[in-house]
């Protein structure tokens, strides 16, 4: 694992940096490949699913609760739908919700956190106290309350989860930004006549974004689980939508002896969360300028 300190060829282009990162960090490669696989499944679900109609409103009364077989690899559910098809189509629901939620949460949380950490003073106080109010509620309860007010749909679900997710990112990036703001190179920038906005976006942001990036990829699993919980309570995805969380919830009452209802949807959630975690860890190692040159 020991590498010479200056392995980087001076003219390293971006693809080369990526290649080097992948060679040094096989987990990143595995995580990236799995995420790519999930994306491909989401795109080509109608082509690879054996019974595309089963992801919708189709029911097959004579095929109910069949165990895994050559015709139905993952078995069938309580209304006779092919679980493999539904799991494949599920890649279009939960992961997409998770990515939208996290994008919204980052777009709100990162600028607020940067402003609080870098500017300090009353701006910091104001932003952090508002954030504290949001953090004072148990996140699931707050999301539940919001989702209950809004009409039950995937859009409401997304808004409700994003609304409870952003305060964590404000906290995370504020601490980083405040510590980076005190570093000598920020002072050096000021001494060079660099404007405040430029310092924030070119110097503070790149040096404080890494923990958020890692947290975001780790949170993909968390958002999928939260969305599943809300769907389970009837506040998110509604039945024919092939949501993994919803499938797990609905399959619970059949778990013994019909274990396949819960298991395959659960494995899909597990695989997705795992893939994004690997990607997040790998990205952290790749992006951290100090770590990437150390053994």
């Amino acid at each position, binding site marked *: 694992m020991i590498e010479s*300190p*200056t392995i*980087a060829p*001076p*003219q390293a282009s971006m693809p080369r940096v990526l290649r080097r990162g992948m060679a040094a960090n096989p987990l990143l490669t595995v995580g990236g490949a799995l995420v790519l696989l999930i994306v491909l499944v989401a795109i080509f679900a109608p082509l690879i699913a054996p019974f595309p109609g089963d992801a919708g409103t189709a029911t097959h009364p004579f095929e109910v609760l069949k165990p895994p077989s050559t015709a139905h690899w993952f078995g069938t559910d309580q209304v006779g739908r092919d679980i493999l098809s539904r799991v494949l189509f599920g890649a279009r629901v939960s992961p997409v919700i998770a990515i939208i939620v996290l994008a919204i949460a980052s777009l709100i949380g990162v600028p607020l956190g940067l402003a609080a950490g870098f500017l300090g003073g009353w701006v910091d106080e104001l932003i952090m106290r508002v954030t504290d109010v949001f953090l004072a509620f148990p996140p699931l309860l707050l999301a539940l309350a919001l989702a209950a007010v809004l009409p039950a749909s995937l859009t409401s679900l997304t808004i409700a989860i994003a609304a409870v997710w952003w305060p964590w990112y404000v906290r995370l990036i504020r601490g980083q930004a405040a510590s980076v703001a005190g*570093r*000598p*190179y920020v*002072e*050096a*920038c*000021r*001494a*060079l*006549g*660099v*404007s405040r906005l*430029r310092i924030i976006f*070119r*110097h503070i942001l*790149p*040096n404080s974004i890494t923990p958020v990036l890692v947290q975001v990829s780790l949170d993909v699993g968390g958002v999928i689980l939260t969305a599943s919980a809300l769907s389970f309570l009837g506040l998110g995805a509604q039945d024919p939508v092939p949501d993994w969380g919803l499938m797990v919830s609905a399959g619970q009452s059949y778990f013994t002896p019909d274990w396949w209802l819960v298991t395959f949807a659960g494995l899909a959630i597990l695989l997705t969360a795992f893939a994004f975690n690997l990607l997040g860890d790998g990205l952290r190692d790749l992006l951290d*300028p*100090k770590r990437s*040159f150390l053994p």
Partner: protein
Amino acid sequence: MTGLGRLAISDLQISFGSRQVVSIDDLRLDHAEILGLAGESGSGKSMTALAILGLAHTVGATVTGSIALDGQELTGLPQESLRDFRGRRIAAIFQSPSTAFNPVYRVGTIVTKALRLHGATKSEASDRAAAAMRQVLLSPDLMRRYPSQLSGGQLQRVAIALAVALRAEILLADEPTSALDVTVQAEVLDLLRELRESIGMSILFISHDLAVVAELCDRVAVMRQGLILEQGPASRVLSAPAHPYTAELLESVPKLASAT
């Protein structure tokens, strides 16, 4: 006093709330002069540099009095116009070069961006950056490296190259050699002397190390507790100090046993 001086400080007071930390009646830096500002830590040397850059407010201090560059008053100017002076006319280098560079950018990017910020075109910026690197005896190839891939001495040279490339008239050097080992320190000092000769740069050299100050500076001002106790030609101040504190500082410079 020799003429107006390039940088003239008079009646400068820096305070945190009601507590005054620096009070300077008169301090001048002439064209192509190296002025040493010596004193123990906490004596207000770095605060003075920060005030000259117009950045004292970022640490919560207030500044009154006059700081003039070629006769133009700097105190009281709005930040937008001060940004023009910082870097372009007054540059600064700091104690710890390894933390004075943002680790996420290549050093060449940092140098050329700074030049672009002060109005150079893209090709002009890279030409001037390369020329400045050669002037501080570094290969322009090093510009493609990241700060973590350069040594402290190399980085301090890059910082000086940046000031050269910006064609700064005044360089505030805040303990620029304190974090470097002795041989590298000597190289950096040579470089500063050479810049004074070749492009007439005026340097305010801040240091607690009287041995270095004696070697480099034309004139010396000795500070303690925010006051300038004495100033004058380096040879005079350091050989026949007028103030007991200067003598005390000189006493504290460690000497090789055989030399005494």
